[in-house]
Structure formats: structure tokens, C-alpha cells
């Protein structure tokens, strides 16, 4: 029924002996505004919204002629600007918005409130939204300590609001739990439309809520047999006071000595009904005797089964009545406890015969706090934005959770707290409208949580690459005295993340090459290395531009068929330049002369590893495409000498082109702002491009993301709109990150071309090829 979890006595007394690590907990408190608090039976969840100064790398064109660049069409050769870099890079401060959530035991509430009071300087906030059964109990303390008025919000409404928020904004939020499987956590891709769903909240009692829209939900049922029953009856039967101790007892017990099984009655199975002999016929059916003593473990186990089965059965009955198949479970009874997740899953599978899926949430413990916060922040319209989980600032699932390890004290006497940080994204993110089936789309090609061999390889690979990244980060800020220090901190942070992921690969959802790359970007940003490759990219762009005309001229000299192959080879050769790939960065660091032509020579000869080039050529002989959407990969040679000539050919064919680049920096990937400058320079040299820009046949857009990989389910809304408007019928994805690590198996409603050079020998080996093998995958939409 209600989410309220009454406290066990042992946690009631306030513990003021702890020291809070100021750098790690309650971060960005200085500018915090809008607070919300959710006080449960044993844990407090605090939420606040804060802005933070954040360094970003900005690029700006030099104005060479006193006129705007796209007008300086008289520039005919690169020699004119030889002595000057193409554009200027500056690091600027930007304000970004972040949501902070922290979970701690109620015992430390006073210490935490004191800490907040001491660090809260700039706030104008007058109220704190509060929810949870304990909100009443601590109302006076909060008001006294913080000087904020406590404004109570309905618990269930907060819970649902929070649930909608995480389901919409965190891709791998929900998972099914499979005990003893590897991995035990199987993350679900969230359907673009999350409604309707059933939420079963198991607090002291059980509430079953049907959620139909953002604002519409109904409590369709409940039960008084819930977490409080387990705790209360467990305490009576075993004299054990703490909830987690009861769970521990249960995990060691044998319920068969207490429960009457089908085989105790039948001697075996009840075959006519297909009921197995091991099924529980009567919970506690064997304890109806004064002659026998039962162990605490066995009784608790039996109790756990009884309650979990009962809840699962009711949930299935309600799911059936309302024809729902997705049931999310939450509440303190569940909260990350493998034992209860297992028993509930078992029960749901049994009673629904597999028709209903028991789903759990990574941030289940924060739902109330998130919801209460959102209630208080409605004027900021938080639901209008997309939010992203910040891997650098968030504790992973079960890594430091006080639910699982309530007394985790580090050696220094400080506590590790469970935290969640969500960044407000500049752009609203939506599905690419061309996805064939958005609900089954999975961006990542390999799930490293499932593939232990690949996981081991990639974790080691990222560990080994860390030195280089640290070096590059330091080098990218030669004028900053603290760069080295920050780079070291980055190293430590990312190294720790990698170690967490080694032990808990499921910590941030499915582990993938993408999540490893994204985590690294988040950590770099955390220590103010917004774009370690900015200078490298600048240099590369500069060099490549010098060759542009030479390349296009030699292409134009070729016959049609030869030109098509040369264009594709160019696209692939450009793609060899990827600072993300270890093999290439070594070559480039030691041999800067390694150029475009050399890259072409490195390429595998046809037939390629994956080769549908013939089909592609046949297609090109047909009518031109309406509009092509191209996801661009690297700066420099890739975009300038590979992509642009290709774009030029498409334009000549009468195909419109949408060029999509990352919104923010990631490795040496070209950013949207950089692409604007590069395009201007190319337009200045190339009439075809210039004309296309003027006529709106070539459009540059941003993807909304800052990742070396590509999640087609989270793209800038205006990109999606444009794609629809232009009747896009061809999608081109290039590069290992976007076309191999992600989207290799992505199915689209239109034709697609996925191409990449395999620049990692392990991966090449796995795919059955050699280093620099070529993937050229041209696909038609499924019928």
C-alpha cells in the first residue's frame, strides 16, 4: 500500500561521528536551488538542482578578408591562409544544469543537513518539497536546520512522476533479474512510449498502480501483505530486528522444512493439474506442531517465499485484468536486493506462465525524490528537456548502495554515498523516425555484460589506453598550471570506474564499448577537459583542406564507375584517421606524414570483409535518392577528403544531403560547429557545395549527442523533424564507433550504408578479418 517504511530501531539514533567528504558528496551545492527530500523508513534521498560552470571548447572562424567567410569566394587556394590556422579555439565557461540525488541512512540526516547549511550560499530557495513517510518525523529538524519550509507532496504521485522521468531519460533503466545467470541483470530497451504500465510498490504494504499517461494514474489495487509483513512477522518469529538481517537469514534457509509441499500431500507431483511436487501447497503448513523447533533461517525463508509469491500472484491477476505485460516493481522490499528480486521474478513467471515480465529499476530508490523535485520545479519545465545520466557523478547499481551495504565506511572514516547525477541536455532527444522498429532497436552491437571475453578485452584495452588519454588531456591545455593535476584526478576517477565495471559490469546498464567511451568523456568533462583533441582536429582540418581541390579534381577526371569506387575508397581511407583507435593513434603519433594516399594503400583489397559494393553500384545506376542523411565521424581527412567528395557526388546526382555531426566534442570526431567552418571553407573552394548550401540542398545539423558512438533512439528533435520533412531515403553511417560498435545490426525503414575500417586487431580477428579490414554494408529495408 504505501511506500512508507517504518524504521528499525537500530537506525533511529542519529550518528554524528562521520565526516563527509566535501569534494564527493553534495557537489555543486553552492549554486543549488530547488530542494526535495524523500525520507523513507531507513534511508533519506535528497534531490537538488544546481547550475555549474563548465568549460567548453568553442571554435570561431577567423575573418580573413573583413567579410563573412562564406562570402570570401575569391580564396582560390590554400596557400593564402598557410600561415594562419583555419579557426580559433577558445575555452569558455558555460553554465549547465545538473540534477543531484544523494541517498544516505536516516542516522546521518542531521550531519547532512548541517553540511548543507554550511555550504549553501547562493540559494534563494524558500521551500523544500518533501515526501515519504518519514517526512513528518523530520519536518521540524529540516525547517530548523535549513530554514526552508517543508512542503509535503503525495507519495504515490511523486513515485509515478519519478518513474516516468527515469524511464524516459535513462535508456537502460529497467532490467529483468535472472539469478545465477551471467549476467544476472538483463537491461531492457525502453519502448519510446512507456505507457501504459503497472507499478507495484512494495513498501510496508503493497500498492498496485496503473499509469496511463504522464499525469494520469490510478491505484487499482493493493495488499496488506508486503514488506512490513515480512519485517514484522520476521521480527516476531526470529527476534531479528533489521530488515537486511532478515533477508540474510532468508537467503541461508530451507523453506521445505516449514512449508507443506505438494509432495508432502501427494507423495509426488499432482499430475492431473501439472503441479510439481516441490510447489508450496501450504506456507508454514509443517509448522503446525508443538513438537518441532524450526530454525530462524528456515522460517524466514518460508516467510519470504510466502510474501513474494502472494505479491507476484496479485500483480499477475491485476496485470491480466488490465491486459498489461510490463510490471515494474519498487519499494524498500525490492530496492536492489537480489533475494527479493529473485523471489518476485520467480513468482511472476510462475503465475503468469511467462506472459508478464517482472521489471526492476536501476534508480528505483530515487523515484520519490525525483518526483518530489519535479513537483517543485514545474516552472522550470524539467519535462521539456531531455536529461542524461552522468556516468562520472553517479554511483553504479549496487556499487555503494546503502540498501545493500548499510554500514559501508571507508578507511578514512568517511562514508561512500550512493549518488545519481543527471545533466540537462541542450537539445531534446527523440527517435530517428527511420528506425524500423523503435521498440526493439538496440544501438550496441555487443553487450559486454553478456560477453565475458569481449568485456575482458575492452576493459583492458581502455585501461591500457588511459596513459595516452591522460597525456593528451594535459597536452591540450599547455597554458593551464593545474592541467596535470586535473589530468591525474581524471585518471584516478576513470580507473576506478573501470575497476567498478570489472566487478559490476551491470553498474550503469548494459556494459558496451559505447558506455565505456561515454564514461571516459564524462570523466574528462568532470575535470574540465572539454575537448582534448581540439588542437589536433584543428591541425588535421587545416591539412586536409589543402588537399581538397586536388582530390576532387582527380576524382572528376575518372569515369563514372571508377569514380564511384574511388569515392568509396576515399570515404573508407578517411575513416582510417581515428584517434580513438589505438593502432592508428600509434601510427599518427610516430609518423605524422602518414597521409591520405598511404591510408588508401592500407585498406584491404576487395572483396572486403563485408562487401555489398556491387549491390550499391547497381543501385546507383538507378534513380537518385531523394535525400541522404550522413552521420559523420572524424575531423580532418575523414570529413574533408572522404565525406565531402562523396556528398558532392550525391548532390550532383540530385540527392539532397543532411550532414549530421556531434553537438559536443568526443575524441577527434568533428563537432557541429567545426563542421560549419569546414563547410564554409569548402564552399569557398567548390561551387557545387556552395550552390547546394545556397539552395538548401545541403543542410548541416547536430545530432544532440557528444559520443563517439551513435544511439539512433536519442537524437536531436530538429534532426528528426528535418529527416521527416526531406523524405530521407538513405542513411549513411560511417566509422567504427557508429557503424560497428553501434548500429551494425540496426534495421531502418529505408536504404542504409554502414561502412568502416576495422582498426582494432582484436575486433578484426573476431570478425574473421585482418587489421584494416573493410566493412561495406549496403542494406535494403526489410519487406
Amino acid at each position: 500500500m504505501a511506500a512508507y517504511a517504518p524504521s528499525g530501531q537500530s537506525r533511529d539514533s542519529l550518528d554524528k561521528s562521520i565526516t563527509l567528504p566535501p569534494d564527493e558528496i553534495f557537489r555543486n551545492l553552492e549554486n543549488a536551488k530547488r530542494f526535495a527530500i524523500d525520507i523513507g523508513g531507513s534511508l533519506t534521498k535528497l534531490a537538488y538542482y544546481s547550475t555549474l560552470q563548465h568549460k567548453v571548447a568553442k571554435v570561431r572562424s577567423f575573418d580573413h578578408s573583413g567579410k563573412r567567410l562564406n562570402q570570401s569566394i575569391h580564396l582560390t587556394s590554400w596557400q593564402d591562409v598557410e600561415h594562419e590556422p583555419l579557426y580559433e579555439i577558445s575555452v569558455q565557461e558555460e553554465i549547465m544544469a545538473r540534477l543531484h540525488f544523494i541517498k544516505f541512512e536516516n542516522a546521518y540526516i542531521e550531519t547532512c543537513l548541517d553540511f548543507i547549511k554550511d555550504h549553501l550560499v547562493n540559494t534563494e530557495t524558500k521551500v523544500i518539497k518533501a515526501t515519504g513517510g518519514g517526512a513528518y518525523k523530520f519536518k521540524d529538524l529540516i525547517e530548523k536546520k535549513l530554514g526552508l519550509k517543508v512542503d509535503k507532496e503525495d507519495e504515490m504521485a511523486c513515485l509515478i512522476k519519478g518513474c516516468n522521468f527515469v524511464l524516459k531519460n535513462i535508456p537502460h533503466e529497467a532490467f529483468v533479474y535472472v539469478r545465477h545467470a551471467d549476467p544476472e541483470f538483463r537491461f531492457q530497451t525502453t519502448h519510446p512510449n512507456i505507457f501504459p504500465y503497472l507499478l507495484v510498490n512494495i513498501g510496508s504494504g503493497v500498492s498496485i498502480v496503473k499509469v496511463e499517461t504522464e499525469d494520469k494514474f490510478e491505484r487499482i489495487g493493493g495488499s496488506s501483505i508486503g514488506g512490513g509483513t515480512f519485517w514484522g512477522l520476521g521480527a516476531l518469529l526470529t527476534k531479528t530486528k533489521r530488515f537486511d538481517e532478515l533477508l540474510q537469514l532468508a537467503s541461508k534457509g530451507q523453506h521445505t522444512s516449514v512449508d507443506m509441499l505438494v509432495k508432502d500431500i501427494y507423495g509426488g507431483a499432482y499430475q492431473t493439474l501439472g503441479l510439481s511436487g516441490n510447489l508450496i501447497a501450504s506456507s508454514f503448513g509443517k509448522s503446525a506442531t508443538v513438537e518441532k523447533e524450526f530454525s530462524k533461517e528456515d522460517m524466514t525463508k518460508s516467510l519470504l517465499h510466502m510474501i513474494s509469491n502472494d505479491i507476484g500472484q496479485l500483480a499477475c491477476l491485476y496485470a491480466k485484468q488490465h491486459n498489461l505485460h510490463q510490471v515494474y516493481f519498487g519499494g524498500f522490499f525490492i530496492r536492489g536486493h537480489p533475494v527479493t528480486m529473485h523471489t518476485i521474478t520467480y513468482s511472476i513467471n510462475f503465475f503468469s506462465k511467462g506472459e508478464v515480465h517482472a521489471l526492476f529499476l536501476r534508480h528505483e530508490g530515487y523515484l520519490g525524490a525525483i518526483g518530489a523535485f519535479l513537483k517543485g520545479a514545474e516552472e522550470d519545465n524539467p519535462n521539456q528537456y531531455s536529461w542524461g545520466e552522468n556516468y562520472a557523478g553517479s554511483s553504479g547499481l549496487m556499487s555503494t548502495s546503502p540498501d545493500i551495504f548499510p554500514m559501508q565506511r571507508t578507511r578514512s572514516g568517511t562514508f561512500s554515498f550512493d549518488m545519481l547525477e543527471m545533466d540537462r541536455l541542450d537539445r531534446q532527444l527523440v527517435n530517428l523516425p527511420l528506425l524500423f522498429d523503435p521498440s526493439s532497436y538496440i544501438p550496441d552491437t555487443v553487450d559486454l555484460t553478456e560477453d565475458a571475453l569481449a568485456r575482458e578485452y575492452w576493459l583492458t584495452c581502455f585501461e591500457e589506453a588511459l596513459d595516452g588519454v591522460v597525456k593528451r588531456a594535459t597536452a591540450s591545455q599547455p597554458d593551464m598550471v593545474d592541467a596535470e593535476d586535473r589530468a591525474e584526478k581524471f585518471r584516478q576517477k576513470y580507473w576506478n570506474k573501470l575497476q567498478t565495471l570489472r566487478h559490476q559490469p551491470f553498474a550503469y546498464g548494459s556494459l558496451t564499448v559505447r558506455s565505456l567511451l561515454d564514461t571516459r568523456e564524462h570523466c574528462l568533462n568532470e575535470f574540465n577537459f572539454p575537448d582534448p583533441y581540439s588542437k589536433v582536429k584543428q591541425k588535421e582540418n587545416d591539412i586536409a583542406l589543402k588537399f581538397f581541390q586536388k582530390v576532387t579534381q582527380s576524382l572528376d577526371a575518372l569515369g563514372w564507375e571508377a569514380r564511384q569506387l574511388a569515392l568509396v575508397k576515399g570515404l573508407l581511407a578517411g575513416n582510417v584517421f581515428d584517434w580513438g583507435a589505438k593502432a592508428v593513434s600509434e601510427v599518427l603519433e610516430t609518423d605524422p606524414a602518414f597521409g591520405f594516399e598511404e591510408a588508401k594503400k592500407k585498406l584491404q583489397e576487395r572483396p572486403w570483409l563485408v562487401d555489398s559494393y556491387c549491390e550499391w553500384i547497381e543501385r546507383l545506376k538507378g534513380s537518385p535518392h531523394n535525400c541522404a542523411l550522413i552521420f559523420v565521424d572524424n575531423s580532418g581527412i575523414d570529413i574533408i577528403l572522404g565525406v565531402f567528395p562523396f556528398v558532392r557526388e550525391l548532390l550532383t546526382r540530385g540527392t539532397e544531403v543532411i550532414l549530421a555531426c556531434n553537438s559536443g566534442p568526443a575524441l577527434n570526431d568533428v563537432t557541429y560547429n567545426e563542421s560549419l567552418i569546414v563547410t564554409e571553407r569548402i564552399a569557398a573552394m567548390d561551387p557545387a557545395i556552395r550552390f547546394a548550401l545556397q539552395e538548401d540542398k545541403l543542410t548541416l545539423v547536430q545530432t544532440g549527442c557528444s559520443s563517439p558512438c551513435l544511439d539512433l533512439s536519442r537524437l536531436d528533435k530538429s534532426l528528426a523533424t528535418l529527416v521527416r520533412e526531406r523524405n530521407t531515403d538513405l542513411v549513411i553511417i560511417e566509422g567504427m564507433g557508429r557503424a560497428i560498435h553501434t548500429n551494425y545490426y540496426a534495421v531502418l525503414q529505408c536504404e542504409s550504408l554502414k561502412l568502416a575500417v576495422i582498426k582494432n586487431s582484436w575486433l578484426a580477428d573476431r570478425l574473421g578479418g585482418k587489421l584494416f579490414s573493410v566493412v561495406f554494408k549496403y542494406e535494403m529495408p526489410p519487406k
Partner: protein
Amino acid sequence: MAQMGSARSSTAAGGAQAEEKLRRRSAGSSGTTRERLPSGPLFRARLDSLKKNRPPFPWFALDIGGTLVKLVYFEPKDITAEEEQEEVENLKSIRKYLTSNVAYGRTGIRDVHLELKDLTLCGRKGNLHFIRFPTFDLPAFIQMSRDKNFSSLHTSLCATGGGAYKFEEEFRTVGDLQLCKLDELDCLVRGVLYIDSVGFNGQSECYYLKDPTNRERFQKIPYNLENPYPLLLVNIGSGVSILAVYSEGNYKRVTGTSLGGGTFFGLCCLLTGCSTFEEALEMASRGDSTKVDKLVRDIYGGDYERFALPGYAVASSFGHMMSKEKQESVSKEDLARATLVTITNNIGSIARMCALNENINKVVFVGNFLRINTVSMKLLAYALEYWSKGQLKALFLEHEGYFGAAGALLELLKTS
């Protein structure tokens, strides 16, 4: 009552009609074939029985459950002098033993108040007796039947319930008795329909509770189950089975729960140290569950209006018991009551959902959990009515736990 009287002319006649009706209904379904070898001095009598398409005496059947064995025995009252003379000694002694006692051994009990008088079965008139004893005493029962040389009667012993399977071997090896095993749910459905159709000595077998929460106005009202289908049948024994019955031969088990009578009694034993079901119920009748359970008003100060939850509704069963102070302030009676309320409400809740999902509005509760258990019956009656907003009716039957055994007896009497 008048309404009931007019529905059923007389017990015996009603019984005969019902039996006839039942026979017609089940005519299509084939009975279990049983081996009957005529031999010895009984040969003539048995042959006579067989000619008349009925099995030889004694007629009784067992339902061996997880906790209790239910025995139904038909005592013929129309024995002719000739029959009496031919009746073998041990058959006579069995009849005398069962009908002249109300208690057997240490634990066996005859529910005299349930006896069905002047029943006509297979053309014979007699009384139907209802006897129960704990399943743990079944070995003693088997031993007794061996001592009384029961096997010499060459009767078919119809048995249902899980124990029919579990103890089959023991019946055979110790008692030299071949069990005719019958499915417990088949028997249950048949038993319910039959007993309801013959009525309870001129009174209605089925009833409901009016004003279940009102101490003064509360009353048992007869209910006419003449058109029973569809029917949700909730059998609360050690565990619970829920059946949707569409006709005598057409029913399905919708679901079941392990939280049943065995759970109530088992938990009570652990929590209070009681040793009998009667004791547990007696304690429960004197206790106050609101000291143990956390109510909606304990959390919200009153009703939870947003969700239309009344303040007195239980929010968390045993929810107060995680607090040490509260634990120390409750009595064993309070704990027994809370256990009873928890189990009962849960069964009511599951039954209600099943009725809703199966689109059935009549819910009949049977099983020995309800024996002498007015608290649970009132709770079920109230809960079903309240949560369904008057759409569902909780019905009860006088012979609570004996329908399985009664159904097994009918199977015995089916012509082969």
C-alpha cells in the same frame, strides 16, 4: 426460509431427485474401472448388489488432505432381516462402531450436526455421516482396518485428496486394501453440487451472511443455488484452490495460493504456542488485530482519500511488529487474530480478482478452514461485498470441508 421450503419438498424425495439428476448429468463420463472379484460367503449378497448396479456395503469414501482426513459413511437404514442375517460380522461391527460413537480414538470426530438423514442413495435409504481425523493419524486408521480384517469385505475403497496417492502403497501393504484413487477437484465439484441439491435435512445447504460487521443485525440467510453456474469455488484447506465451475463436468482450476488454513494454523503455533486449530481460533476470537497490523489511519491519520482507502483498512499486516515496543504490548490473542485476518483477507482479495477476471459473481467458499470460523466468514463476506461495490456475493456451505469425500462416495456409487 419459506422460500427455501418451497424449493425443496422433502429431504428424501429431493435427495432422490437430485441423485437421479446427477446420474443423468454424469452419464456421459466414464467411471473408473475397478476390480471386484466375488468370492466366499459374501458372494450371494454381492451378486445381489451387483445385479442392482450398486456396490456392496460398506459405503464410505475418504478425502485425505494435507492436514485432515475426511470420511463420509453411508449407514443404510433399510436393511432387511435377510440382509441383517447375511451381513458378515465385521461389516456389522464397522457399522456399529461408526454410528454409535461420536469420537474415534484420540483424534477422530464425527460431526453429528452435519449428519444427513433419510437420504436415498442407489435405491437405498440411510443416513450420511461425516467424520474427520488428522492426517498424521492415518497410519493408525490403516492399522485398524487391518486389525478389523477390512480387506475381507472386498470393498472398493474410494479415496481422494493427495493422501490417496501418498498413502496408496501403505494401504496396500499394511491394510491389504486397493485404493480407488480419485481426483480431488472432480470430487469436490461433484460433492458440492450433490450436497447442495439434497439440502441439509430440509434446510438450505447454502447461505450468505447479512450485515457481517454488525454484531446485532448479523444473520445467516439461506441462499438458493438452484442455478449455480458459473460459480467460483474457493476451497480453503491447508492451501487454497480456486475453481471456475461452468457445469458439473466443466470446470477449471483458476489458481491457488499457499496461504491457507495450514498457514494460519502453522503461524499461530509458532507465534502463540497453541496446539490445536480450535485453540488458535478461540484465541483469535478474543484478540485485536489492529494492535499488530498497521492501518491506513496509522500512516495517514485518517482515510487516504486520494485512493478512497478507508482509515480502518489494513495497510500493512503485522506492520506494527517491527517496533520492539509494539511487539511487547501485544498479546497472543492479538497475534492469532492478526494471522487470521491476514490470511482471510488475502484469500478474499485473490478470490475477488479471480471472480473479476473470470466474469463470475457468485463465490462459494468451502473447506475446513471455515469450520467454526465465523470471524473469517464475516471478513470474507464483508470484503467481497465492499471491494466489489456490491457486485460479488460470498456464499458458504454447511458441510464446509466434506465435499471432496462426498464426491468420492458418489463415484463409488456410480454404476460401472
